[in-house]
């Protein structure tokens, strides 16, 4: 199902889940024994890993320094036709 998402929608889903991960991470920093939050964190993590792998397979690496899947035969990280995050998506 996630396979059918557009690049924009897939990124948005990653941003949503990634936000949950940040929020749970900070909560767990001050509540390290909260098992419910820990379960939620594990769930978010497994979903996020699937989506990030799918994204990097279709559109190039999300992370540098050996942290993301590389599928193309050139260094897609610096592809000239790809925008960097701060440049925005004017098609929206």
């Amino acid at each position, binding site marked *: 199902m996630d396979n059918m998402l557009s690049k924009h929608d897939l990124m948005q889903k990653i941003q949503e889940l990634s936000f949950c991960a940040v929020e749970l991470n900070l909560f767990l920093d001050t509540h390290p024994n909260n098992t419910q939050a820990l379960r939620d964190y594990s769930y978010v993590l497994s979903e996020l890993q699937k989506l990030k792998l799918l994204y990097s397979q279709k559109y190039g690496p*999300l992370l540098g320094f050996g*942290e993301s899947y590389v599928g193309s035969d050139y260094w897609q990280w610096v592809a000239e036709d790809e925008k960097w995050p*701060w*440049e925005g998506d004017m098609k929206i």
Partner: protein
Amino acid sequence: MWVYEKKLQFPVNVRKKDLKMANAIFTQFGGPNGELAAALRYLSQRVNMPTSKAKGLLNDIGTEELAHVEMIQALIYQLTKDATPQEYKDAGLQGYYGIWDGSIFPSSPLGEPFTTAYINNVGDPIANIYENLAAEEKARSTYEHLLNLTNEPDIIKPLSFLRQREIIHFQRFGELLDDLQLHKEMKTQFVVRKDDK
């Protein structure tokens, strides 16, 4: 070790140029209550914290602040993209243009270069956490000032998100303060609670 992730924490897609608003937003890049100051404050303070919770929280909030620096850069970049010298002049920003052109220099809206004089790291963990609580509140209030200056949804959405993050960070720092005050190695304890009456 830090690793860059090629995504914004929250989308920033501004369709309309607004140089005056970009200038106001500079305060959250290189200004006194800005995201850069926050990141440097927490990432400096984390080193000497007495508990693992404190090291972890300062590390993680400091890291999130770097993502906020990037969102602020995105806002300023997109609000000023392809602006002409005449447009800088019309916005009263010929001084900025004269020095920096369209580049995003870490400064306040008044052109003051960013300085670490905005932050502190005094050794005493309790004093540091109180500074951080105040910093989060000042940043929240700064975002409210910025929100008062625009009706543009493309700008309001990311600014509202960033304002909400200040509230969450304040909450987490409050919990950390409680935790540190109960820590056995703490020499000073200033606890303000209802049940102390």
